[in-house]
């Protein structure tokens, strides 16, 4: 087993795991854990007739995902209690939003930090409430990093809870301010969907825009298979709604994310057989193949492979995150401190 395609195949066509021997299973489990997709895989293959050892491992993975779901919802509730009377919309992002909204993307999803988005002009009040009433505190007390976050990033410096040891990322938009595309943060807030407990989640097209932005415009493709799995599940949940693709196309344009969204859809279709719309996905481009090679760069031990390609994508992520002169200054400062 020399790349992560085994995992993609198992997610896309769960019955295909029946042909795996124990070495195939061993590799699949390690790759799925490394890609943070063990829980998603475990729910996909639930109910199939599998070798006893695989049944046990998949049950473990579901137990772990269930714990993460419970913990994520609890963290969201803690944030709600700290921010409830500020009278600003608090929008859950990523994994926590998927489980809170009961979407397929939340099934078995691994969830780390709590990510929320609030209107930019409410940032100060939100930060103060989290620290003074919620029990969160700053993770790093480094002046450069702190100033960098506040001046150039799309989120506050990360906060960690004193007792629960859980992190919260408070966003005011979905891409760094230094990145070229400028998503319409006001529109993200305006179109968000309220839940019964008062918390919000992004509208489904905006969720897809966010996932695509995270993957291509900001990230170095780490966690890309999971990110595209999210996009696959979101598309399957919503594509039958009338006007869904038109809205997605419009939103992607509005957030200046038409290219990343198109590429995300094309890759999701290639990997997971996602139902996509040709107009929004756009025509295949030469670069798509490189992306796939990067996404599959993991061996049967769960180890990262194709180091030069990984590094190239890492450089690219920095290149996209900020203009060249600023990048030079940033890397110089980081290097001097290290």
């Amino acid at each position, binding site marked *: 087993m020399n790349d992560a395609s085994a995992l993609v195949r198992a997610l896309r066509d769960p019955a295909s795991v029946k042909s795996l021997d*124990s070495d195939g*299973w*061993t590799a699949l*489990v*390690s790759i799925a*854990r*490394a890609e943070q997709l063990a829980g998603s895989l475990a729910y996909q293959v639930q109910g199939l007739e599998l*070798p006893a*050892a*695989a049944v*046990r*491992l998949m*049950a*473990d*993975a579901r*137990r*772990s995902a*269930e*714990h993460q779901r*419970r913990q994520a919802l609890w963290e969201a509730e803690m944030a709600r209690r700290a921010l409830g009377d500020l009278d600003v919309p608090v929008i859950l992002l990523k994994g926590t939003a998927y489980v809170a909204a009961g979407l397929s993307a939340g099934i078995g999803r691994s969830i780390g930090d709590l990510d929320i988005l609030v209107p930019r002009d409410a940032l100060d009040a939100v930060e103060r409430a989290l620290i003074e009433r919620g029990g969160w505190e700053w993770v790093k007390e480094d002046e450069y990093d702190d100033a960098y976050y506040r001046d150039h990033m799309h989120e506050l410096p990360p906060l960690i809870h004193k007792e629960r040891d859980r992190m919260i990322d408070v966003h005011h938009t979905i891409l760094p301010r230094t990145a070229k595309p400028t998503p319409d943060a006001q529109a993200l807030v305006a179109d968000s969907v309220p839940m019964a407990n008062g918390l919000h989640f992004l509208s489904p097209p905006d969720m897809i825009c966010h996932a695509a932005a995270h993957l291509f415009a900001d990230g170095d493709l780490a966690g890309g298979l999971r990110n595209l799995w999210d996009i696959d599940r979101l598309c399957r949940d919503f594509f039958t709604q009338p006007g869904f693709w038109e809205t997605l196309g419009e939103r992607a344009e509005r957030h200046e994310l038409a290219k990343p969204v198109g590429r995300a859809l094309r890759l999701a279709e290639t990997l997971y057989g996602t139902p996509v719309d040709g107009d929004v996905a756009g025509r295949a481009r030469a670069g798509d193949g490189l992306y796939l090679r990067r996404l599959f760069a993991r061996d049967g*031990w*769960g*180890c990262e492979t194709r180091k030069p390609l990984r590094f190239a994508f890492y450089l690219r992520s920095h290149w996209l995150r900020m203009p060249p002169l600023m990048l030079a200054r940033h890397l110089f400062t980081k290097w001097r401190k290290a």
Partner: protein
Amino acid sequence: MRHEFRLTVGPVGFRIGSDWREPLDRLAALYDGYPETALPDFTVRLFAQRPWRRFIRPSVMIGGDYMLPDAAPMALAHGLLAAEMGMNLQMALGQRRYLLLHASAAEKGGKAVLMTGASGAGKSTLSALLGERGWRLMGDEFALVDCETGLLHAFPRLVSLKNEAIALFEGQVDARRFGPKLSDTPKGTIRHMRPNDEAVAHMAEPVKPALLLFPRFGHEAAVRPMGAGEVFVRLTQASTNYVALGEAGFDALSSLVKTVPTRAIDYPDTETALRLVEQLWTESSL
């Protein structure tokens, strides 16, 4: 990974991959006779941080299915310790089938004594000594509680003897059961010792926990009863996955606390401790 070794310890299977042959040869020798595993529960990886660090000042990074973000590398001479730590790490971060207690355990007559407490309390040494004196060693570090049955599963990894404890066993047990002496590790001098044949032969047999002890070294001999509340809280602190198991973990722990008699014991030396354990064992079986 260039080299591979697989083993089953109690109910848990491991696959260990390494950039170097040497640590796995040591593992294979000490774990000789432990069953293989076709589909392991966890993968451990011992790897060089940079390709040239395989040869030049070789240092071992510990990785696997579950990893800590900022783990420090170790000297290749401590490769055996690195492998053991790698297995520990998988258990501590990834175990979701059993309630994992940081405790040692030994079995006699189909029932087990569990010993837990702060680092340095002596639980590892005491269980290893019991294992040489008519008890079956179930594990010197982790005890696995089955959430459905409440039974205790053995996890008899190599005993990790530290500092003064090493001399208690050298000369007493077959020299072939020892690994190399590892000095200047983060925990001082360590020498690994293979559990005896009885512990290995019966490791797949879970038993009922019958006595729970909180030993404490360095005090006059004393036995104290403990309140259920204190026992419960200290066991939650001794567990790496109590929170993650949710309600099942709570039920398993509550039932353990309610059904198993518990004592805190203070001891000035190991012989006194062993006498106290035997005495309390006899009383609890009456």
